[in-house]
């Protein structure tokens, strides 16, 4: 029997932007077991809901994570609106989707850059992050913030984007698509990329279903599930929505799904800019959630389905708020893909899941 060695991996590692620790049990150069450990940045933000007004808590949800910040404010607002039966104005619904899809574009570009950096393609990394800057510029122009947007509130949105500015955003995105297609071409056809990603971290469709994986991780294994296809909020205005799916189930497929989702998000924004209705931006939410009232909500974050739960107690404070992030759901699948892989592939394998530990620990 070969000798087993335990190698600690993380929480600080050049390829990991987030603090995740793994105890890797190796047999020669092959991983036979991976034991995950989180808890390095647990901040107890869910507990804070008991001491913050439910209307202002949206500002805290935005600060859960720097990448999914708009998504969390949107998920929280949606949940409270479900809890209190608030009807959001149609223009606000569409503006929310536009910011949310821009967030997805910037998150995927960030991830593609990190992936390129991880397999040593420095130039590709810089090109991805150069394009991402344009999305951050749009955020700054429309909300004043590049990371924390403070655009969403319970009942609607805080700012409008004029129709002229919306057309300007579409123009910027059209210019971005031309340059982005060249990068997609490199990611999907370059042999050096394929050599590092093909066959790495394979997860079959049945395994993806058994591990209840979500988001691009699941869609790369052939599971055609995307919460956006259920038409919540402004997504209901889309003429059609088909999730981006790949069948290979490996790192290359995850890269492909995310690369194509950027183009899909830009298409969504273009369609919604044409269809955006005029009208109010927000409705005033009066009163407090009824004692014992509960509500749930789901949202397709860049990393996958995010689940929110809120419970009222008759006061302006909630008695419970819960966020289940996509990474928490994908950890079991990620650990499975590590079993049997080469030690050298571990960093890249983890990166293809795009774990976000800030969101997961809250």
């Amino acid at each position, binding site marked *: 029997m070969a000798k087993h060695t335990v190698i600690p991996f993380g929480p600080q590692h050049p390829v990991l932007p987030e603090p995740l620790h793994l105890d890797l049990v190796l047999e020669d150069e092959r991983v036979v077991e991976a034991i995950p*450990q989180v808890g390095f940045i*647990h901040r107890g933000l869910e507990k804070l809901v008991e001491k913050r007004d439910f209307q202002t808590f949206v500002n805290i949800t935005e600060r859960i994570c720097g990448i999914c910040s708009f998504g969390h404010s949107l998920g929280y607002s949606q949940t409270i609106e479900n809890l209190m039966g608030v009807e959001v104005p149609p223009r606000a619904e569409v503006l929310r989707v536009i910011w949310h899809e821009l967030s997805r574009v910037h998150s995927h570009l960030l991830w593609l850059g990190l992936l390129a950096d991880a397999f040593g393609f420095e130039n590709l990394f810089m090109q991805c992050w150069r394009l991402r800057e344009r999305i951050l510029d749009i955020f700054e122009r429309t909300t004043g913030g590049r990371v924390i947007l403070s655009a969403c509130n319970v009942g609607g949105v805080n700012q409008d984007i004029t129709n002229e500015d919306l057309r300007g955003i579409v123009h910027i995105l059209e210019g971005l698509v031309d340059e982005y297609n060249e990068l997609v071409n490199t990611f999907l056809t370059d042999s050096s990329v394929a050599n590092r990603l093909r066959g790495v971290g394979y997860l079959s469709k049945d395994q993806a*279903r058994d591990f*209840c994986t979500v988001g691009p991780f699941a869609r790369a294994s052939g599971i055609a599930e995307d919460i956006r296809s259920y038409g919540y909020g402004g997504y209901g205005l889309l003429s059609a929505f088909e999730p981006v799916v790949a069948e290979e189930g490996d790192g290359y497929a995850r890269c492909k799904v995310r690369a194509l989702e950027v183009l899909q998000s830009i298409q969504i924004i273009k369609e919604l800019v044409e269809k955006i209705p005029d009208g109010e931006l927000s409705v005033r939410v009066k009163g407090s959630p009824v004692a014992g009232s509960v509500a749930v*909500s*789901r949202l397709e974050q860049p990393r996958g389905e995010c*689940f929110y739960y809120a419970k009222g107690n008759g006061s302006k404070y909630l008695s*419970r708020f819960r966020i289940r992030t996509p990474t928490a*759901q994908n950890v079991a699948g990620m650990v499975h893909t590590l079993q049997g892989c080469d030690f050298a592939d571990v960093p890249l394998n983890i990166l293809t899941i795009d774990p976000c530990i800030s969101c997961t620990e809250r």
Partner: protein
Amino acid sequence: MDPQVFFDSELEQLLLRVQDYQQRGWRFVNLCGSSVEGQVELLYSFAQGKQLENLRLLVSNEQSVPSLSAIFVNSFFFENETHDLFGVNFKGLAPNFGGRFYPTSVPTPMNPASAQAQARLQEVEALAQVPSPSSPEQQERQDG
């Protein structure tokens, strides 16, 4: 808007109901604990496509809850989390981090009524009653 479907369940029926979800092709979405008057309310969520259903049950601090990890592997993350933050004990949990999943400065911070939190409170109270040894400088000042 997601459907707001909540069912109450008994602890004894939990595994049967979860197995039923699994056999019908539903997936496990979330486990959420809430502290309710000295007890813990557990909310299990399951989804299939657009459908979303939630099972709610109330457990006391002394009860052991059967783990879902043999049915839905990914539940281990949430059960370890609920154990560390609420003090709920899960039977058959694998992998079981034994309380070291989330290192917390106080036991079960989301459930102050748990047995672990109460034991810690008693320890702190007992320590507060022991007079602290004074430093040589303080002793000198008192004597002088």
